[in-house]
């Protein structure tokens, strides 16, 4: 057992993966000497060398494009995109090449690569540093998309993502990087592509992932004080989506609120809501509600607290659901 932050959890997980498999190679901007702008790769270049922890030129299409080639050659590249808003130069490679390679080659080649992306807002940054763009990739067949919310998952999920033979987009909740938790490095990890009930309840279900899991747990805590008993589910995997865990919960509570930082329009919440109304139609006591970022370009940081979902907005939605 050790206590670590989410950032350190990923760092330790990367280290274990690199020790286990010499074909695991890290690529990205400023990940070597500097250890990344969030220090997630701190110390890894020193210990594994410049051949395995590569400071790339400043070109994201290049990072992902060359990672594809490395993967074709049998390596397992783990690339870091410095901030969510800088993934777009690589969008073409991810959507047209990474996602389709397996199908195009009729199963002859695989691309076991991981694309790490610090995601979301709440850190007071300038524009392009606070985006939640997971839905673009979850929408794309051929990609797997996961998002950790705590140190323990960070530690295990990064290792499992690296071991996955399909390409995985690995989202890291940047405003929670310094949240600490106990991690048991000897316990058996949870399965990567499964959702997790992280608080049990009976009155309504809150579904979240990444940075919003903590917000939802706090909301549930506050609601408990008012006698409302909320269940909280951490999706963990956005594609594939573990609908069984969600459906089981909604069949119990009859009410659901989906929460994410991303804009609601065509976001993950829309998919979850659509699936739930198909699977749980007769169990629903209220319409599924969504709480998310407004459908606007991410605002200047002075406004991000009003833009992003917070405890009050989650509880407001819960009240509306319960009052239905």
């Amino acid at each position, binding site marked *: 057992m050790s206590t670590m932050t989410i950032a350190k959890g990923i760092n330790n997980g990367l280290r274990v993966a690199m020790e286990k498999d010499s074909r695991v190679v890290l690529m990205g901007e400023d990940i070597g000497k500097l250890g990344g702008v969030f220090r997630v790769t701190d110390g890894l270049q020193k210990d594994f060398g410049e051949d395995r922890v590569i400071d790339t*030129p400043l070109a994201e*299409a290049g990072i992902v494009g060359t990672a594809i080639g490395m993967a074709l050659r049998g390596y397992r590249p783990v690339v870091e995109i410095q901030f969510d808003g800088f993934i777009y130069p690589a969008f073409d490679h991810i959507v047209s090449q990474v996602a389709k390679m397996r199908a195009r080659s009729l199963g002859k080649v695989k691309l076991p690569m991981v694309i790490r992306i610090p995601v979301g807002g709440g850190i*007071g940054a*300038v524009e*392009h540093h606070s985006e939640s763009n997971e839905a673009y990739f979850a929408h794309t067949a051929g990609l797997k998309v996961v998002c950790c919310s705590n140190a323990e998952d960070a530690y295990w999920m990064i290792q499992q993502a690296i071991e996955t033979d399909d390409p995985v987009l690995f989202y890291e909740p940047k405003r929670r990087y310094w949240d600490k938790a106990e991690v048991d490095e000897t316990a058996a990890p949870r399965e990567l592509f499964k959702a997790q009930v992280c608080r049990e309840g009976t009155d309504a279900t809150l579904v979240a992932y990444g940075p919003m899991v903590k917000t939802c747990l706090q909301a549930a805590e506050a609601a408990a004080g008012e006698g409302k008993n909320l269940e909280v589910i951490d999706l963990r995997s956005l594609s594939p989506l573990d609908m069984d865990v969600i459906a089981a919960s909604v069949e119990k509570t009859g009410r659901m609120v989906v929460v994410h930082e991303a804009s609601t329009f065509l976001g993950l919440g829309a998919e979850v809501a659509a699936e739930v109304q198909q699977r749980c139609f007769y169990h629903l006591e209220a319409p599924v509600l969504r709480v998310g970022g407004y459908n606007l370009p991410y605002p200047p940081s002075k406004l*991000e607290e009003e833009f992003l979902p917070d405890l009050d907005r989650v509880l407001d939605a819960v009240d509306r659901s319960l009052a239905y």
Partner: protein
Amino acid sequence: MSDNAVASASTSASEHDALAELTAPVPEVGDGGPEMVQLLTPEGQRVESTEYDHYVQDLTDDDLRGFYRDLVLIRRVDAEATALQRQGELGIWASLLGQEAAQVGSGRALRPQDYAFPTYREHGVAWCRGVNPLNLLGLFRGVNHGGWDPNEKNFHLYTIVIGAQTLHATGYAMGIQRDGDVGTGDKDRDAAVIAYFGDGASAQGDVNEAFVYAAVNNAPVVFFCQNNQWAISEPNERQTRIPLYQRARGFGFPGVRVDGNDVLAVYAVTQQALNAARSGNGPTFIEAYTYRMGAHTTSDDPTKYRVSAEVEVWKHRDPIERLKSYLVHQKKADQDFFDALDKEADELAATVREGCLSMPDPTGESMFDHVYVEPHPLVEQERREFVDYHAGFATEGEH
């Protein structure tokens, strides 16, 4: 931009770094080489140049003192902004310290009808275009994404996504070309575009595509690369194997390296390139060889990746000191001038500080403004929901 989200290393790590630095060999610090255009040595001696002298020979003493004033004032604004960030008044600040001459020399070479596309560090160019420094601070304070009207000053918004603006600049230049505002010989009409970017940006696909587009269209655009030796923690060697200005040749247009800490040389070289563009002779690549004296941004900790010996070498090439030596030795400025300028700089800094502290926060509802030109039902629906939601809190409070 970006950004190092975490500046502070643990104590033991920084001690370790300090030790490593003591034992590390002093790196070889490039001096730009013999190809680099220079009109003022670091000591402030005027160097003759048959090719470039005539671009500066008409400069009056007033003009030269004007350059000096620009350099000093923008450095002062920059220092004030850094201080404001330290005091929590700005979220982050990207300092131009060390790059003043590259920016003022090129910025002063522009004519009103020319158009500039900056990165996020071009505070000196913004100054030359007449953008109020407070507008720059607004972005870093988080009250807006850049509060100036790009078309009023012919100075585009800051672009944080590395390299993107080089394509926009090229397209803008293609527009100028189609408007016939190139090669007329009318000096108030012929226009050019200048695109700023960094050494790191030179690796981006967008930047290289901009070179191709500019070349095949013979677009009136000047690519102005401030090679400040670093892209956050990555030195030039991570981006290129040849001096950057030499790349231009492969794309089919001229490239020139200029001493970026020599305001006269930068002014001359940029004039030449802009003239070529305005008269229909197409693009030029300028590599301004300079140095990022400070951290990448206020969130960065450069002791993690570079040694202070390198910074020391560059201190001796300071752009302001060199022009000052020249002005003093040539008796082009007296002590009264320098004293008055110091006072002006302090007053400007005070105005900037005051303006920053009294900058109003935007209202929450303002985020729903300006997303589209025409009304959008979802935006309007959410605006109403937002207002109602917050009104709910207000009524709750009344009970």
